[in-house]
């Protein structure tokens, strides 16, 4: 490939200003893993530069090096043409770099203000810093439409707002180079649009933005140039205008990728699950679900769209049999005509009656991160008779099954003894999917199945879900990705504030209409 950053840059007129960021020969190994290998990258000032690559390609590592979080084994970093030694994040901050990590680095029980000033306080006493920060935050909010309540405790904020706090942190530190690592993974489309408006605004004021994402649509939509990484190496840097999503996908994965979901029209059968008047009041007395009525039929995918935090998680947890402790659940439900107790049941009972569950948070719920892949492969089903050998668990049977499923679901690396923690997010998700799908449930609950997963894996997971539907299973899909909802669902319900705002058919609606309903605008409680 000829289009490396260096050659691309050299081709420019000599009068051009030096790049805002230039990386030369960056290498980094974690033990045996070569996360970055001899990377070169140049980013022009005043542009939005995208970075794409499969899970584990080394994107986050590279940016963390730039931000001084990791130290490279070799290589140089130049800011505005001058070499700088970025020994720690302090140095990066001084060089004007700010970073919004994939996993936020906020203190959950601090207020927004406290999080913003942390590490950038004016003096030994907090009060003056807090006062100044409050004023500056107000200004920043006005300038960039970044409103957040400065006194809110961060853990009470939605992820979208938490991300704003991260951005505010960077801006408060006067960053003019802003790195965002998969910022839209947790955002709703309106939130993502809002973020992009902000990023454009920043760019127009001369800031430089680096954006890591798995969503090629976003790359095409907002970036000026894009770099592709594969297995720790930088394989290409091209102006966005000169490329296509298909070309990028092929560069990333090394093969052709189908970006659309191919599926036949659904052939819905009898209702599998019917839900009427589901209400839930949590331990703090807040009503999270305010009367949900839903029907899911055999052989269809019912997509639930909505901004996260509108009750989807609670809905999935209740149906999955593990409502949060202290919650009060009322309402009626049936599964295949038989009554399904909503309160007082547990997750085991749900699995017994044929409800599978791909949870929203694979790392906190769907997997035990320290368990080996084979142990995770029966998690939740570990009491099923086929995995027992007398009083003991039949580990050989479980291992064999794991080997089989890892092959069938293309889990990489296919090592059943590897701890879940050591798989990339996409492969972790494949393990969960393999487990839940292979149990052949009558109803499959699916929450955010492709969050943070690379396009190769997304394609794969989507295809498996459709296959399952075609085999006659009922699927309840919750996702904040409108694209995903639109591509997969046979029917779409929109959830807002603990209610179903209405139902649409994918062919008969638009992202715009759904977006409005997700924001609570629309026809109220349509049936």
């Amino acid at each position, binding site marked *: 490939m000829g289009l490396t950053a260096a050659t691309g840059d050299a081709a420019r007129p000599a009068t051009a200003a030096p790049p805002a960021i230039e990386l030369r020969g960056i290498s980094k190994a*974690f*033990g045996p893993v070569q996360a970055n290998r001899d990377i070169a990258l140049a980013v022009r000032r005043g542009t939005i530069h995208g970075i794409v690559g499969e899970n584990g390609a080394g994107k986050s590592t590279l940016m963390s090096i730039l*931000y*001084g*979080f*990791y130290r490279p084994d070799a290589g140089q970093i130049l800011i505005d043409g001058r070499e700088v030694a970025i020994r*720690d*994040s*302090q*140095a*990066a*901050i001084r060089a004007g770099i700010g*970073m919004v*990590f994939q996993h936020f*680095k*906020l*203190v*959950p*029980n*601090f207020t927004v203000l*406290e*999080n913003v*000033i*942390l*590490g*950038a*306080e004016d*003096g*030994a*006493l*907090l*009060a003056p*810093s807090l006062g100044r920060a409050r004023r500056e935050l107000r200004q920043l909010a006005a300038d960039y439409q970044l409103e957040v309540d400065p006194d809110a405790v961060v853990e009470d904020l939605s992820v979208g707002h938490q991300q704003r706090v991260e951005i505010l*942190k960077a801006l408060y530190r006067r960053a003019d180079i802003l790195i965002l690592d998969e910022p839209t993974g947790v955002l709703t489309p309106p939130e993502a649009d809002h973020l992009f408006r902000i990023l454009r605004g920043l760019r127009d004021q001369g800031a430089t933005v680096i954006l890591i994402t798995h969503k090629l649509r976003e790359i095409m939509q907002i970036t000026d140039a894009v770099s592709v990484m594969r297995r720790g190496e930088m394989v290409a840097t091209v102006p966005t205008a000169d490329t296509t999503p298909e070309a990028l996908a092929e560069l990333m994965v090394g093969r052709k990728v189908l970006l659309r979901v191919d599926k036949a029209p659904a052939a819905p059968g009898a209702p599998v699950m019917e839900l009427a008047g589901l209400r839930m009041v949590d331990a703090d007395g807040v009503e999270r679900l305010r009367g949900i009525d839903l029907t899911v039929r055999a052989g269809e995918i019912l997509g639930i769209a909505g901004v996260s935090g509108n009750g989807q998680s609670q809905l999935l947890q209740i149906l999955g049999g593990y409502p949060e402790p202290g919650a009060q659940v009322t309402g009626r439900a049936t599964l295949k005509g038989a009554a399904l107790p909503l309160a007082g049941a547990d997750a085991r009972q749900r699995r017994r009656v044929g409800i599978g569950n791909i949870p929203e948070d694979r790392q906190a719920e769907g997997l035990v991160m320290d368990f080996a892949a084979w142990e995770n492969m029966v998690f939740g089903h570990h009491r099923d008779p086929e995995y027992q050998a007398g009083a003991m668990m039949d580990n050989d049977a479980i291992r064999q099954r794991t080997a089989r499923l890892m092959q069938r679901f293309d889990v990489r690396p296919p090592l059943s003894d590897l701890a879940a923690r050591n798989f990339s997010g996409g492969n972790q998700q494949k393990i969960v999917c393999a487990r839940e799908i292979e149990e052949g449930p009558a109803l499959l609950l699916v929450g955010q199945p492709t969050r943070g997963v690379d396009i190769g894996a997304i394609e794969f997971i989507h295809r498996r879900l459709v296959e399952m539907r075609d085999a006659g299973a009922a699927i309840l899909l919750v996702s904040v990705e409108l694209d995903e909802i639109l591509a997969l669902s046979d029917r779409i319900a929109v959830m807002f504030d603990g209610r179903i705002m209405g139902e649409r058919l994918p062919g008969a609606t638009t992202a715009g209409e759904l977006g409005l309903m997700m924001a609570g605008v629309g026809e109220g409680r349509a049936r």
Partner: protein
Amino acid sequence: MDLATLLQILDSATRLMAPLLLACLAGLWSERAGVFDIGLEGKMLIAAFAAAAVAAVTGSVWAGLAAGIGASLALACVHALAAITFRGNQLISGVAINFLASGLTVLLGQSWFGLGGRTPSLEGAARFAPVTLPGAEALRGVPVIGPLYAEVLSGHTPLVYLALALVPATGWVLYRTRFGLRLRAVGENPASVDTAGVSVVRLRWAAVLIAGVLCGVAGAYLATGLSAGFVKEMTAGRGYIALAALIFANWRPWRALGATFLFGLMEAVANRFPSLELGPITVPSMVMTALPYILTVIILAGFIGRATPPRAGGEPYVKER
């Protein structure tokens, strides 16, 4: 119960509270920064020994206090080295420190003084003397407040007042200063501090050293304030009680005052009423001795909800694995 008895119990509770409070605040500093500390007991013990030994030799209680702090700091350094610098298991390190102090105090005491680990009894300037707070005598006549001030608040050694003053001081530093903000952050999410360009290791060291100083004061108070010399194992489990109080207090300074006072109070009550006669039955003394512990369990079960420890507590901060 008459007023005099009540005052005496409160007075006694205050004295008994002070070492617990100091140790509890020590634990608070360390654990708020994300470093568990079950070595409070050991640090107090070695401080008690060092304070008594040096006070006995020099005749100066202040030299003793300094030595106590120094000895406790030395063990705190061991803990910090193991738990922070080398990212070892914080619980094991704490257990080791307790053993180390228990053995070293007697070993050194025996080879220095030949009294089987005891130090010579301290007299005069080698001990902390009680101080009478200003106006204590004048106010004595005022109903309620007067006796409370004169009998309960006044007449303790300076370290008691230091311990009490440390409560607002701790609260102030933790919640009102840059250092406190960063320290609390490092106990909740060290990565947030790290990405803000502040050294996690340095902050945690600072917190552990502060804990060392406070344990040093607590130990010195035991040996030179409450008693007049060191006796082996004289901390008698107070480090563990302080730990319990810390959890009880949900890692908050003012609640630490409340929790340790409660423990002091329960011990004082059990001291005052060694066997309680309740009509026909006499509660045996063993029950009264165990009463503080039984009550703790009951209070814990009845009134205090789930304790929420600092989120990053007990975990060494590892960036790369």
